[in-house]
């Protein structure tokens, strides 16, 4: 059950990539000597001791209905058709939405696990893991537009572009592995707000998310265009040129860092495809995720690839399940949630179980979230869909020092507003950073005359979900 470190350290990674190759005979030792110099991704100590070392951030695009998944509302069943009077941002001044009626959830809730937390029939597999999950039923955010809410859930800022949470974590902790980027995003399609979702913005570019698109060449330029022997000849010639150039320039560390980047790129060409090559996974593991052998896409593939990236020392892996269309945005028909839940349910549960049995769940934080919930009401009691709802929604954390089997916060009887213990997106972010040993008030970056934070001037660590 012990976790096998695949690459135990940055230095180890470097040696393993270079060992035995004909490259860089002279400079390797010299470069290893100033390993941490001018390396923006060098591991940095956390602010405080923490269990979580890595994050897998599962983002469900489009807005998952809380009252149909993780927030049971018997009263909403009972009061179906009753009119409610609200000044709601999505229905205000909207023709045809002058009157609002409560709409019944379409899936049954049942208690699960030892904790007995109720989960709907949309997530039967995740429900099996409920004792490992700290569920928050009182999340809320500032905007009910996909673009703004997606930006907010990733950057803490709902209008202006700011660094992504993955970039902040990379900036705060660096990366133990230098054959792969510190922050990777696996997304089949572009999300709302596009690349701003994983941008480093004013943080150095080394902290931006590297996009992985499931398919034949998951990472840009990762596939060598010439054979390995030819490429090694090119790299050897390059190293010779650069070595001479470096020596004439007093071993300028910036030049040395770039020489090293070719070594790591060479390693990355091997390490990344290896990480994305699931062929050595057992049938039993594939079955756990519900992944057919040979498949190179789908959320199950994303989840298993995420585990492999975490094993290889990637600090922050984000998985986006869909994109800016064909997602959870079920205005037309809530039954669409069936397809979307089926796409992610078993893979997510498989990921939790797999991490757990490998002993990785202790130091890997899994975050499951979405940009907002969906309205418990609509303009007709029998309307098929639900609208955007930023006032209250559900998300959860698992592993990485969270307290499994807990439920924090609640909504009112109909799931419309937070009833107690509201958790703003800033609080959610503060909690994630805290679990990683980062103090959200101290993780700052001076830009344009001001110290910026992921949580701006807000944020409260939700200690109630900590183990």
């Amino acid at each position, binding site marked *: 059950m012990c976790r096998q470190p695949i690459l135990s350290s940055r230095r180890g990674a470097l040696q393993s990539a270079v060992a035995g190759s004909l490259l860089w005979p002279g400079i390797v030792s010299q470069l290893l000597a100033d390993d941490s110099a001018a390396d*923006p991704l060098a591991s940095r100590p956390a602010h405080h001791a923490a269990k979580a070392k890595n994050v897998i951030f599962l983002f469900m695009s489009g807005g998952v209905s809380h009252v149909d998944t993780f927030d049971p509302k018997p009263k909403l069943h009972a009061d179906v058709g009753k009119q409610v009077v609200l000044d709601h941002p999505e229905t205000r001044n909207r023709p045809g939405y002058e009157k609002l009626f409560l709409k019944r959830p379409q899936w049954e809730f049942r208690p699960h696990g030892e904790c007995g937390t109720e989960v709907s029939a949309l997530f039967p597999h995740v429900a099996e893991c409920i004792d490992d999950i700290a569920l928050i039923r009182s999340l809320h955010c500032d905007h009910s*537009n*996909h673009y*703004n809410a997606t930006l907010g859930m990733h950057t803490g800022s709902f*209008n*202006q*572009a700011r660094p992504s949470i993955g970039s902040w974590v990379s900036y705060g902790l660096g990366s133990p592995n*230098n*054959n792969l980027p510190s922050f990777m995003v696996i997304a089949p399609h572009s999300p*709302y*707000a*596009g*690349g701003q979702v994983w941008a480093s913005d*004013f943080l*150095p*570019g*080394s902290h*931006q998310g590297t996009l992985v698109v499931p398919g034949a060449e998951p990472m*840009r*330029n990762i*596939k060598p*265009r*010439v054979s390995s022997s*030819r490429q090694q*000849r*090119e790299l050897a*010639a*390059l190293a*010779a*040129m*650069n070595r001479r150039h*470096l020596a004439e*320039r007093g071993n300028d560390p910036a*030049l040395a*860092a*770039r*020489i090293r*980047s*070719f070594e790591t*790129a060479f*390693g*990355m060409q091997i390490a990344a495809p290896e990480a994305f090559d699931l062929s050595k996974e057992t049938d039993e593991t594939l079955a756990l995720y519900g992944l057919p052998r040979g498949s190179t896409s789908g959320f199950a593939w994303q989840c298993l690839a995420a585990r492999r990236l975490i094993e290889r020392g990637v600090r922050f892996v984000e998985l986006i399940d869909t994109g*800016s*269309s064909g997602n959870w*945005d079920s205005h037309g028909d809530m039954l669409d949630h069936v397809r979307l839940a089926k796409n992610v349910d078993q893979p997510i549960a498989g990921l939790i179980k797999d991490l757990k049995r490998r002993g990785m769940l202790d130091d890997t934080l899994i975050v499951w979230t979405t940009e907002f919930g969906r309205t418990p009401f609509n303009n007709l009691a029998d309307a098929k869909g639900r609208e955007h709802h930023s006032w209250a929604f559900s998300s959860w954390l698992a592993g990485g020092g969270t307290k499994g089997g807990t439920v924090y916060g609640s909504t009112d009887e109909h799931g419309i507003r937070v009833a*107690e*213990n*509201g958790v703003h997106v800033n609080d959610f972010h503060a909690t994630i950073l805290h679990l990683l040993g980062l*103090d959200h*008030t*101290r993780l700052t970056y001076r830009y*344009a*005359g*001001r*110290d910026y934070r992921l949580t701006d*001037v*807000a944020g409260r*660590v939700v*200690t*109630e979900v900590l183990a």
Partner: protein
Amino acid sequence: MNSVIRHCLTGLAFWFAATSGVCADDMDDAFFEKRIRPVLAETCFRCHGGQKTSGRLRVDSAESLSKGGETGPALVSGQPGESLLLKAIRREEGVSAMPPDKPLPPAVIADFETWIKAGAKWPAKVVAFRSEQHWAFIAPKAVWPPRGSAAAAHPIDRFLNSSERGADKRTLIRRVTFDLLGLPPSPDEVAEFLADESPTAFERVVERLLASPHYGEKWARHWLDVVRYADTAGETADFPAPHAWRYRNYVINAFNSDKPYDEFIREQVAGDLIAGHVENVSHERYAELITATGYLSIARRFGFDLDADHFLTIDDTVDVLGKSVLGLSIGCARCHDHKYDPISAADYYGLYGIFESTRYPFPGCEKIKAPRDMVPLLAPSEMERFVKPHQQRLADVDAELKRLNDGLAGLQQQLKEAFVQNARVLTQGEFDDGGSQEMAGPALEHIEIKRGEMLQLLILPRANHGADSTLVELEIADVRAADRRWNVTRDVVDDFLAGNPHADRYGNKATWFFLDSRNGPALLREAVRDLEQNVGLNSWRAGDTPSAWVNANDAPLKVWTTLPPKTFYLHPAPNGPVALGWFSPIEGTVRVSGRVSDAHRGGGDGIAWRLELIAADVSARLMRSIESAPRLAELNRQRTELLAFAPKVELAYAVAEGPSHDTRIHLRGDPKSLGDAVPRRFLSVLGGQTVPPDSGSGRLQLAEWLTSRDNPLTARVMVNRIWKHHFGTGLVTTPNDFGTRGELPMHPELLDWLAVRFLESGWSMKAMHRLIVSSEAYLAWPSSAGGGQATRRRLSAEELHDAILAVSGDLDRSPGESHPFPDEKTWGFTQHSPFAAVYEHDRRSVYLMLQRIKRHPLFALFDGPDTAASTPDRFTTTVPTQALFFLNDPFVHAKSESLARRLQSLSEEQRFDRVFARLFSRPVTSDERDAARQFLSDYQRDLADVPEAERPVQAWAAWLRVLLSSNEFLYVD
């Protein structure tokens, strides 16, 4: 529940321990300003603030709270449990519940608890700022450089007291060429410089570079970074801004023409208003001045509905104005008085009002997709001369058309009724795709008809959507005079456009009618000759369909289908029929024969048709309806012509004056929470001048205030930027922040001296380049110290892209213009499916299309421009994914191969020389040549799978990739 509270408290304690770190005061203040003060102000002050002292309690200062009211101290610092305030908002027993009407949300109560526990700090009111104390608000003084060592003759070197080792000539020409043009020097340029042994050799190089059009392409990019230029709007669907490129090119031209910097700023802020004050402004000058205001109009757009979020765009404008021109973070004063710099919220909204009185172009957004308010690039006088007369003619034509059409509409209604009431169906048919039917039957043999009645053949769209090209043959014979026959083909094919109605062979002027029968009979009015450039394809139509047309040729005509020679066609509209009418010139009996055929096989539509007799005298009304036909046809022809030859007015993404008004302060930055109105004015620390009454938005005045010679910031900020881009770091290392939070200048006297020289030179940017690059400091061998010494630097993303193109020989040196955006009529972008494109070309990368929500991949990889916010300074990150670009990117492979092929015609010796001269501006060494030969032969041996003839090219391409990947190529000494 208890455990939850315990957890909660532990968490808060932790939170406080944390905030007592580096910026404890800032954070406490921020917490108070964001979480506590608004609640007090909105909820409590109406009863407990200022003169209102309900229960003798005031809550507008920490002192008042501690003093308390009738029931004792409301607040005990650090003791939430003892504080009545908290008990009241928690609505605990024995305390008046506050606020009385409705409880505060739990999160707010938690905030208060947090705040009190942490000591209930009430931020001291920001102390009135004493501007005379901060260096940047004191006008620069011209201090003559100190007399240093005799060797340092250049004034800059006397300030720096530098005595660095000079760099060699090859290094210098490479450095100065990249610095000024962003491109490597050509081998000839290097050779020329080496051969020139005169003391002015370097000066001559600098003059040549400053005169090159590529200079503007390089230096415009520095300014475009500062003004966060993009070709899209940046709202939720990232709508394109297809006219923004004109502003980009304006900036390029401004640098190339060495436009004085003060004029450059004035034009960008108020070009349109300056244009209004110039007598007889030329077309080019007018267009330039309007285009310049792109500086304002490229402000970022926000949200789903731009109109609703326009305040954010104005905020973005004020923010960028402050950073770019003044080096001040004015944006901080949006929510509250600036905490560090002497900028109040009133200052902020004084400027805000100026831009709120300005009309921004509307690029389109999810809610309202159609762009509007682009500004025509034609001076009003030209508009008057060329466009106005044209518009007047068009308006006259439209007015007459409307009058005639209105008259016809009434008649049309009568006709419709007459046709419906008197129609007698003679025969009808329907057939599937590709079929054909003959008109036959006894009903067609003897048709009694009176003069003025009409026979009508209708072609109908079939039940689904079908509507097709229909070949019609129709002949009407007078039963009593066998040789009197009306054959539609024969009568109309040769001179189809002679009229609708069309004459017959017997001199009857109005016999054949081509009718739009969607809503009663109406003549098809639009005549089109040689439709889609097909000679002899002539049509009467109403839009695309319904229509009637002929192939007048003696030969088949191949269009969307093949039309046999000399044939007549009808085509219904999807929403209704087309008809051919025969208006009887006789009284008697006729016989009808003919055929209807699907002329366009495929599509599964087929044809439905009907032959009717309109058994009533519709002649009077029909004739009246056609009386105006010739005039209508003429008017339509004129209209088409007027539109076709309309003076083409080009548009700019530029601003214009809007309704002028002062704005009210947005309390805490919230546009729904308004405070007092503030007059439109300049920053008080820089003079506080107000916009005079009746002078519009105030942009013209603002432009003057910004560029006044008394303004202590504008010149300093720009010379610092120029310095920065020559030396790697500025004299002030925070080029966008000269306020108290920015860094102090490293050599304040030098900065001031440069600023004064800048003013004395007439704000000439080229003069600054000449001054700076002639210093020993610039000419030195690079050091890593920075701050007034030459530094080694990596090429920027643009320089890398352009240098690869330049050395490969593929660089297209012509200026770029617009981007191939999709036609704006097709824009349906949403946040679900936003605009996204990459338009590659071999021009310089300043001309690449830049989006706001998605970065160009090359720029994302090499720290390229940030299109979302003003960027004074780019990062230089070194990451392995950049190395992957050199190893595997198709661009690098294609360009190395391109160069390899170009080199094929040279001898091997020449190739080595050429490549090193092009890429590195130096000769190849013998060691390098040997190594290269070895590499090429080893590599070729490895290419067994490649055809033999291709091997040298592939090996050379590989070797060139190595050189392009080298540090020597990517770094400039």
